[in-house]
């Protein structure tokens, strides 16, 4: 069962500042959706191997060769803010 607190926690993990009304609305919807999608468990036995990639490709490598980079102007062209040829972002919290 998915609670309001669960949704708030998920929103925090997903970095979305949901409004209270959105949390309420989503909690109800997720409950319904999860109820429907949980059906996958009916057939997901221990004997069934999971598939992560639709095609059986393996060992796809690139030689260690330099390819052209963007120019700094191109790299920074979409930046909301930049300074000294760097992306300028608000103060970063968290560990040093």
């Amino acid at each position: 069962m998915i609670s309001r607190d669960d949704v708030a926690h998920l929103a925090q993990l997903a970095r979305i500042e949901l409004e209270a009304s959105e949390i309420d609305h989503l909690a109800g919807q997720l409950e319904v959706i999860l109820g429907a999608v949980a059906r996958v468990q009916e057939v997901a036995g221990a004997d069934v191997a999971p598939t992560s990639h639709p095609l059986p490709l393996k060992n796809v490598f690139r030689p260690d060769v330099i390819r052209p980079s963007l120019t700094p102007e191109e790299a920074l062209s979409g930046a909301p803010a930049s300074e000294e040829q760097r992306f300028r972002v608000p103060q970063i919290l968290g560990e040093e």
Partner: protein
Amino acid sequence: MITQNASEMAAAVAAGEITSEALTQAHLSRIAEVDEKVHAFLHVDAEGALAQARAVDAARAKGEKLSPLAGVPLALKDVMVQKGVPTTCGSKILEGWRPPYDATVVTKLKNAGVVILGKTNMDEFAMGSSTENSAYGPTHNPWDLTRIPGGSGGGSSASLAAFEAPLAIGTDTGGSIRQPAAVTGTVGVKPTYGGVSRYGLVAFSSSLDQAGPCARTVLDAALLHEIIGGHDTYDSTSIDAPVPAVVAAAKMRNVKGMRIGVVRELGGEGYQAGVLQRFNESVEVLRGLGAEIIEVSCPHFEYALPAYYLIAPSECSSNLARFDAMRFGLRVGDDRARSAEEVMNLTREAGFGPEVKRRIILGTYALSSGYYDAYYGSAQKVRTLIINDFNAAFAQVDVLISPTSPTTAFKIGEKADDPLAMYLNDIATIPVNLAGNCAMSIPCGLAPEDGLPVGLQIIAPAMADDRLYRVGGALEAAFNEAWGGPLMNMAPSLTGGVR
């Protein structure tokens, strides 16, 4: 001129009967005339398109050999990046972003002289089945402007049906090329996963996404498929093999002796009567053309939709993490006091629409510790079971067929905020994405009850895309003969006058 097929337009350009510039201008005029009603385009790059067109004309004048679609205009779904041209994915969070690079598909189109008219509307980040989830307003179905054009690639399908472009690029994660094609009476192909490069396709669900051709005829789709398909050294999941001979297959018009499977689980309950009627008639047409019709069962397909709604949101929750206001796109709340973390939270709240948030939260849940095995892990097992079902089916038949979508185009707003009802639109298309094989939707008539187009889905094994075109081409020819011309001839005029 704009009602011609792309192959006819290309031939006219190559023969010097018309310049690409004039052809492009004709389409730009059509867009100017009708797109206010249809809203297929988010951005029209008139200048860029005309410059490309003139380059093709110049190349022709110099006697250079032109590629099969050179000079023909195309509409590009706004989920593909094009250098210097705004790319929004239908989202506020990317408003104003001009990518500094071209998607591989775009590079191939440019190299082939295909003229890119602009970027088409879509459900935000390709999440939806109606194009109502675009942050820039819905696209209207040219067959009935009060109805949806399908989704997520509703802009691309509508641009074809409104004769704003003869070719379009779509992307298909759970049906986003095929379902819009079905409800607009056009042709759409989801190639084999890895058949067309994903480099530059803004990812929704990486293991399901596939770009593909959209057109008004099977042959046009094949010509476009050959241009955009093939191996790419920028996409690790790209298949290192030649593109299947789709153009030759589209021209075969012969299905004699082919074994065609009707999937028991894709039909019946939940499908509109008129959809089933047109589908059943199509089966008879195929039988009449000499195909052997075999009923097959894919018992795990009923788990495809739940598996999809775990896998796609899970991958999207990770793929969309990069939209964080730091390096590109929208930034909200940067008042010099708030932290980067707070600005991320506010930007993502303001920049994403409800469906995108819903899926991100759902995916975050499905991947979180303690739930992974029950949800994401189980969904991946279902994927294996669906692949097994396909393998068993393709051991008996060459292709499978089904209705593309359970219903014809519904009314705009009809299913808003009923996610489960909306998700059911993709019930017949999703198994193909989960397994990674290929499928096509072609028009198979109008539903008697509403006069709206019905799509028929053809499904082939991985890397056997040519079979889609063989069956699609033969059916299309048979239908056109029966209808006295293409289905699109029956579409209403958008200008009140003669098309």
